[in-house]
């Protein structure tokens, strides 16, 4: 049998006929392309492909999951074998199940959903992609202090066939693309990096190669080179309590770490304690806890155009949606799955249960989660800051505790604000705080024209570890009385 949907449905039918209470099966075909040019050479040239099936059953209040690659041998036998093993494992584990779980409903019927793509990244000739990366990399040449110049591109296409015992037959094609430039200079005993438009692999959006063409990284190469060299000669960022304006490419990670992760219901209930940790957020805080100031509006949205977790359905077959997490500073909602949504009084899952390909069982993941724009112009906001305030941007380092309260972030670059303008450059800017105090110190968010949806491709969670992708929209925002620490 070559039809993946029929194969997935067969696994589900087999599990049900063998006694499973519920079952779902996902077949994933993943294609990736990663290219990096480093110091004039092709540093990374990878083209991975994955194709496999994962079958999940619910039986006697417990789940069972089995997975194997497809493409070798008899797919029908494999699908049945996995269904049988998943059921057997659920049966074996059910003796240790201490709490009966009731699953929230899921979709039924046939559905087809595809990421809108203007230019299929995989159809662009490789030579054209290398030309682009070579041009980006070359734009950072010209400084003797430079030790690394790197341009990166990555594209991903994931095709899914999902069948559930509720009768859903879901076919999805999810695509994203992106990249960046990054350069490192060494001088005066310092090693300093600058990246554009963001660091750690770069900026990604759902879609195709059109995003790469719109980034125009080569127009920013000289500036990145010069800033990386200048940072080696710059003063270290001072410590003390200061007003801080944080740029969007840094604020997106602040959202991710201090709002997204504590908002995952499995963390709240202690299921992730053995590795990633728990959460300070509790169900009883909903509707009353002042998570942030009145300027803080955070919205989860797995339907937003361009989001890395924008899709029709999650990996439990639940339809995507949009809902408030923090509204005018007040805590309003969680990320959930079918198993645990009922424990916070919700009839439906929020469709935030995803797996890293066919090999892993789905777990609760952050979806696209954004700080909504405010009313300030960027220049207007800087002009409104007192002397000694700091503007910083671009992720360099992040760390946050196991309850997602105490955090410390370092950015690639900062400027001191003097006379209402950006003044001297400062290196290793580092700030520290606790989550509710930090978000409650927000007194201004820039308006929509400064707002950007930033893609994050390296979110690790689970044990064994799974990697997920999502986006966070943010505009520069101002926070009062933030503790900066000298990081040298």
């Amino acid at each position, binding site marked *: 049998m070559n039809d993946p949907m029929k194969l997935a449905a067969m696994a589900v039918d087999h599990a049900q006929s063998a006694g499973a209470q519920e079952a779902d099966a996902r077949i994933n075909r993943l294609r990736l392309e990663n290219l990096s040019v480093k110091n004039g050479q092709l540093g990374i040239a990878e083209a991975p492909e994955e194709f496999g099936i994962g079958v999940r059953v619910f039986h006697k209040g417990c789940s069972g999951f089995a997975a194997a690659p497809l493409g070798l041998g008899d797919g029908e036998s494999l699908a049945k074998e996995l269904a049988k093993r998943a059921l057997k494992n659920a049966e074996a584990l059910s003796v240790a199940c201490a709490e009966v779980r009731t699953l929230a409903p899921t979709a039924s019927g046939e559905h087809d959903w595809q990421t809108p793509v203007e230019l299929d990244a995989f159809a662009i000739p490789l030579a054209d992609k290398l030309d682009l990366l070579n041009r980006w990399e070359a734009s950072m040449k010209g400084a003797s202090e430079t030790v690394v110049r790197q341009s990166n591109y990555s594209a991903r296409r994931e095709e899914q066939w999902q069948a559930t015992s509720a009768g859903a037959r879901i076919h999805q094609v999810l695509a994203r693309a992106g990249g960046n430039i990054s350069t490192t200079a060494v001088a005066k005993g310092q090693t300093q990096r600058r990246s554009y438009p963001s660091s750690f692999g770069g900026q990604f959006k759902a879609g195709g190669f059109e995003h790469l063409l719109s980034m125009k990284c080569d127009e920013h190469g000289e500036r990145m080179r010069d800033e990386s060299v200048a940072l080696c000669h710059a003063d270290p960022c001072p410590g003390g309590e200061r007003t801080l304006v944080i740029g969007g490419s840094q604020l997106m990670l602040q959202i991710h770490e201090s709002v997204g992760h504590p908002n995952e219901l499995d963390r709240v209930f202690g299921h992730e304690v*053995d590795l990633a940790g728990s959460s300070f957020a509790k169900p009883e805080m909903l509707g009353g806890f002042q998570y942030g100031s009145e300027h803080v509006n955070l919205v989860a949205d797995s339907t937003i155009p361009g989001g890395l977790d924008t899709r029709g359905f999650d990996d439990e077959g639940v339809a995507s949606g949009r809902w408030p997490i923090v509204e005018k500073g007040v805590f309003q909602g969680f990320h959930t799955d079918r198993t645990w949504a009922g424990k916070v009084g919700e009839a439906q899952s929020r469709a935030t249960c995803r797996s890293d390909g066919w090999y892993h069982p789905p777990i609760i993941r952050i979806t696209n989660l954004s700080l909504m724009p405010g009313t300030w112009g960027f220049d207007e906001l800087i002009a409104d800051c007192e002397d000694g305030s700091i503007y910083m941007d671009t992720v360099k380092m992040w760390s946050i505790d196991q309850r997602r309260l105490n955090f410390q972030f370092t950015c690639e670059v900062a400027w001191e604000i003097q006379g209402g303008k950006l003044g001297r450059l400062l290196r290793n800017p580092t700030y520290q705080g606790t989550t509710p105090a930090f978000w409650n110190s927000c007194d201004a968010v820039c308006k929509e024209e400064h707002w950007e949806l930033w893609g994050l491709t390296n979110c690790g969670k689970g044990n064994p570890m799974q990697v997920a992708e999502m986006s966070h929209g943010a505009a520069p925002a101002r926070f009062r009385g933030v503790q900066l620490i000298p990081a040298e």
Partner: protein
Amino acid sequence: MGILSRDQALAVARSILERSEADETEVILQSAEERFVRFAGSGPTQNGDRHRHQVSIRARVHCADGIREARATCDGIGDQQTSGALARAFELAQLAPPDSALGKLEGAYAGMRELGSEVLDLATLEHSFEDKAARVRQALALSKEAKLEPAGLMHTGGESLTIVNSAGREVHDGRTRASLSLTASVPGFDGGAGIAEATTERVAQLNPEEVFRRAIEKALMTSNARAIDPGQYTVLLEPIAVSSFLLFASYLGFGAQEVQEESSFLCGRIGQQLFPEALNVHDDANNAVLRNYAFDMEGTRKQRVPLIQNGVLQPPVTDADWARRLGVANTGHALAKPNTDGPKATDLVVAPGKHSAQELLAGIQRGLLITQFHYTNLIDPKDLLLTGMTRNGTFLVEGGEIVGAVKNLRYTESLVNALGNLSGIANEQEVAGALFDGVLITPAMRIENFRFTSSTDF
């Protein structure tokens, strides 16, 4: 089909080589079979019963200006999938800029075929979910008895690694792993908790009850934690705490490329006595505690490399390219090529000291016992300046004795500074993991003047 045997894996890899049109080809085939269950107070929360194969093909094309190379991977071993990966690797390689610094792939060497082994321990490879359920029930029962919330993992399985290249190199190795962990938390997850974990080559080597009781005992000690001010303290770091700290030298420090790019803490310090003489760190895949693969991702035999010898920093690890560029020996520490990271020391072993951890603790007038650091990350690579949080048991030590639990603290400290302030190494090694991957074999360490920069209220 689960994990591949040596003969099966070599047959797949050789058939890919035979189909290659490239001037040089290298095939890396990894095969894994694993079963795991995660659990919490409600019982099992996730599980998996799965196998996979990962094929990585490096194709190389020779030209007048050097060698062009690229890599493609797939997770199937059928002819259709591997031919697709081969074609993608070859296509990419033809377009890659030539690198005149690259040498040809290295071929067979003496002892190559005797390296490594099959995955031998069937009890670990086939450890059942019935057996895992029994351990989950045991963890839940012991935690309930102590009025604590459990969360943990039991994970068993086997992996094999096979590397074949067109120059005649053929190597294969297999290993099994069994790991078990429990974090026992005070209900509410508001701070008090204890952790214990164990990783072994064979499931029979695990002692689940000992692991569970150790976590619970630690958690029970964390009640009534008091707040203390951040500042500098003498610390006794248990092995799990050492791992999340020292592993950053593995990620970014002990490799030849980062030294050349001047982003390593080794830069300008090789040969210097920076640390006490008692400190000896090797990269040693063939160590007696937890053996790793015998060769690197180019199939080169991994050497036992001194990295810190009697407190003196030693030269970094290399791979074939970096050894050639620097004119030094290849130590066998390649990652899959091509990559932008260079060679890495992935099997760090810290030699044991002479005193027990208890004796080291007894020598602390006022300080802290640290069980674990959470979310350690790198601020500055040149001194390996790191930050992270304490977790799962932080205790005040006065007059050589634990006097009570303290609330968690954030540290900001450089590895270079901390190892320079090392005042004792315990005499028992443990296998310890870290959040960002990797495993370290290390005893506990006592360090003076360790810097904590902020505190929490839990």
